[in-house]
């Protein structure tokens, strides 16, 4: 009943073809979400197709004003990558506060965004930076990619190959960690693009997943400084509430994390 067949793909094409041949396959990247879910028997794929050894899914490239992180790159490699630190240090920082060392050594950017946990860190970076998700079929703007809790624009059997980020003028990420899981109780990514646009995304806060925060964007557009956010009011309506944080607390955190992210961005 819970048997599963393990495949190790050596290329994206092979992974796609393996997927097509099985009844209920799942791609496996770092396994930091998929394996616990399988152990709890909440998922029981017929086939597990491991993407971990596919060379074309590994690595980081900086070319001009675009930073591209391949989908299978683990957090630790992102966090320590010289190009990441140079081009968008906020991403290196985000990765350094994601999970714990064990998670950072296994988990991948592709797995994170494919899973689209409402409290995951990377979706905030993609949305705030206006990133593009590359798959084996197409390119998808971050706006269109994230579609609510645990749901994305990915089609069945579609593989994320990379994420490309336009290098911003300024960016910062601050996160209040969930005391137990260390996901984002609320995390806010702020970015100012090279053309002067301001984009702010919050994760962990909303009942419908990662979201932009227009009120803070407007305030920062007028004045890129932490104090500009003082007068912004964030409504608790539609925000998550659980044993670790009320909706009002999360509304407060959106402001406070945004202010600190702006301070960190400089």
């Amino acid at each position: 009943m819970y048997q599963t067949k393990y495949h190790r793909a050596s290329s994206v094409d092979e992974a796609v073809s393996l997927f097509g041949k099985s009844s209920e396959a799942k791609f496996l990247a770092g396994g930091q979400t998929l394996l616990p879910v399988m152990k709890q028997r909440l998922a029981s794929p017929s086939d597990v197709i491991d993407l971990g050894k596919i060379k074309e899914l590994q690595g980081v490239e900086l070319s001009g004003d675009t930073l591209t992180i391949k989908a299978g790159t683990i957090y630790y490699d992102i966090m320590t990558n010289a190009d990441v630190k140079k081009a968008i240090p906020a991403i290196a920082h985000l990765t350094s506060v994601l999970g714990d060392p064990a998670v950072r050594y296994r988990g991948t950017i592709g797995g994170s965004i494919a899973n689209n946990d409402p409290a995951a860190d990377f979706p905030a970076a993609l949305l705030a930076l206006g990133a593009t998700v590359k798959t084996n079929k197409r390119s998808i703007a971050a706006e269109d990619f994230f579609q609510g809790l645990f749901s994305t624009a990915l089609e069945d059997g579609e593989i994320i190959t990379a994420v490309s980020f336009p290098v911003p003028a300024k960016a910062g990420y601050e996160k209040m960690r969930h005391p137990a899981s260390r996901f984002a109780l609320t995390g806010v990514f702020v970015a100012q693009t090279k053309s002067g646009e301001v984009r702010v995304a919050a994760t962990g806060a909303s009942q419908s997943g990662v979201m932009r925060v227009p009120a803070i964007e407007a305030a920062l557009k007028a004045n890129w400084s932490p104090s500009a956010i003082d007068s912004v009011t964030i409504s608790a309506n539609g925000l998550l509430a659980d044993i670790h944080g009320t909706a009002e607390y999360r509304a407060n955190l959106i402001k406070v994390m945004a202010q600190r992210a702006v301070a960190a961005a400089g």
Partner: protein
Amino acid sequence: MGVEGIGARVVRKEDKRFITGKGRYVDDIKMVGMTHAHFIRSPHAHAKVKGIDSSAALKMPGVVAVLTGREIVDDKVGNLICGWAITSKDGSPMKMGAWPAMAPETVRFVGQAVAVVIAESKNLARDAAEAVVVNYEELPAVADVQAAIKSGAPQLHPEAPGNQVYDWVIGDEGATDAAFAKAANVVKLDVTNNRLAPNAMEPRAALADYDAAEEHFTLYTTSQNPHVARLVLSAFYNIAPEHKLRVIAPDVGGGFGSKIFIYPEEMVALWASKKVGRPVKWTGDRTEAFLTDAHGRDHVTHAEMAFDANNKITGLKVKTYANFGAYMSLFSSSVPTYLYATLLSGQYNIPAIHAEVIGVYTNTTPVDAYRGAGRPEASYLIERLMETAARQLKVDPAQLRRSNFITQFPHQTPVIMAYDTGDFNASLDAAMKAIDYAGFPARKAQAKAQGKLRGIGVSCYIEACGIAPSKAVGSLGAGVGLWESAEVRVNPVGTIEILTGSHSHGQGHETTFCQLVAERLGVPISQVSIVHGDTDKVQFGMGTYGSRSAAVGLTAILKAMEKMESKAKKIAAHALEASEADIVIENGEFKVTGTDKAIALPMVALAAYTAHNLPDGMEPGLKESAFYDPTNFTFPAGTYICELEVDPGTGKTSFVNFVAADDFGRLINPMIVEGQVHGGLVQGIGQALLEHAIYDANGQPVTASFMDYAMPRADDVPSFNLSHTTTLCPGNPLGIKGCGEAGAIGASAAVINAITDAIGKNNLEMPATPDRVWRTIHAA
């Protein structure tokens, strides 16, 4: 003390095994023909079991049997017992509902087992369990202690009307009322002591084997007290008579109290191994640990303290509601009574105390002793009250404590305990000096300038350890004596085996107990081994909990050593043609004092076993045993002071400094003591800031995994600054008080006192999560 004697920082002998993965835990043990058990547990907090259909499961591959609660009751396996009888104030005995090992009719908490699948592998058992159909009829449930005592609340057990187990009192009500009538000031406080899940690193496990030819059972289990397990399984659960039941607790990965108790899973594994005629293994997973390991604490208390015009305490009134969960676990009844209310005098001279404790059933996991057991609840309450009083009376909190300290010993409190010794001023002074208490206002001002709220919090705890004088606890209702036993075997070649009824599940007995032998005989600890955890090897024992292993267990070893040494001296005197009174033991030799005549221990041992030339009438051999029953509890005490900062934007707490000045009496191995204090402090801080086992109003657990239940991690706690202010315990020859629980007992109040100082608001419940602190800061 010698390099390996008492007081030496000897590296732990057992750690080589543990850190190289060679520890041998229950789940590591495999037996020929072994089967695996998977329990079917109630998803409901309260329901009738209308029927169990296992026909489909029985047809599944590898399934050996599906056994139900009805069958275990029909086979006359006894109901679980509570081993401490408490009498209510009206003279009636406590009111208990029956707790069968698997529920035949009614389930009363989420996770209670109704049936078990036995199969060829763990996964096959798990697969089949999904095919067992249990038909439940849901009943209304109640999880909150105050909701459970309201009229009209769902009722758990017909035996306990109003869900009340007992209404117990201690102290002199008249004298206390009189003190309040005359009081210059009265300080009032409502306190909730949050429910905790113990979370030992190793989940519970049991491996049971029945030998039909011998009608004999062997049980490997995760126990802190294998002899007590055997006693209870034999005498109350009808598993087998004691000589037909061997209980082995091999390496055990932490207990914190939760592995004192004998649980349904062990009973079922034993019973099932006979039924299926094959060994049965069960290893719990983390979710099962959250659902079924006895939880800790869960009190709601109202307390009032009376002061005279000089700020001297004149009286204390306490009313506590203790949530016991759905059933009375093995020692649960004693925890909020004799282990709690007897410590309500704290370190203070309080002439009159009256406490009332109401024990309540709810549809939650049973609650029992957890590191500190009752004493953290008492200490937290008193130390929150003292802090509240200092704020209300506008006096320095350290000074208010100091001016009320007990300074004359022995001191009889109004709540049974007679403190034997202590120096509370010394530990308060040491802690204040270590944290530079006087410099705090300047540091607070500096932090304020940086937008941080800085606070300092004091906690002066006392606890009762060395559990316990058997006669005394017997008179209070305990069902067992709490002595300890030991045996010293000197082998013919002079190596030494110490058999102890204590059990090590992380405490380091294999090192500290050897240090006593090294101290007395001057032999290296490599020549000594400690045997524990097996009822076939060790004569008897009451196990390890209540910080008793050194104060009681090691004293038993000392008594056995003294007997052995006395015999060995006779043999040595005989061999050296000297008087026994002139023999001294040094560096592994028996010497005639003032001469160079000596005989080495191995030669004495050999003489004892060859028996060729022993003194007339002496029995051969060199092996002695002893039972030691303490004459009083011991009273570890100390002061913890915590300095921290609160981030007003997020409510998050960050530690600046945490100092501990403890009086544990004599330290055998200071390094191990420090480790015990570190672990205890982390648990106390965990309770104060992070941990909370939560149920929703319908009794569904909300925190049944580490993704929701916040265990403290290394970066949640500061680096600790420890020191010791020692007064030797007069109650035992080694002067030991015990150190295993102090950290968990004293730390929580220091943290909450510091946070409330930082934010300038006194009312704050544990755990002080960032959300809760932020809301408290910004509350109108």
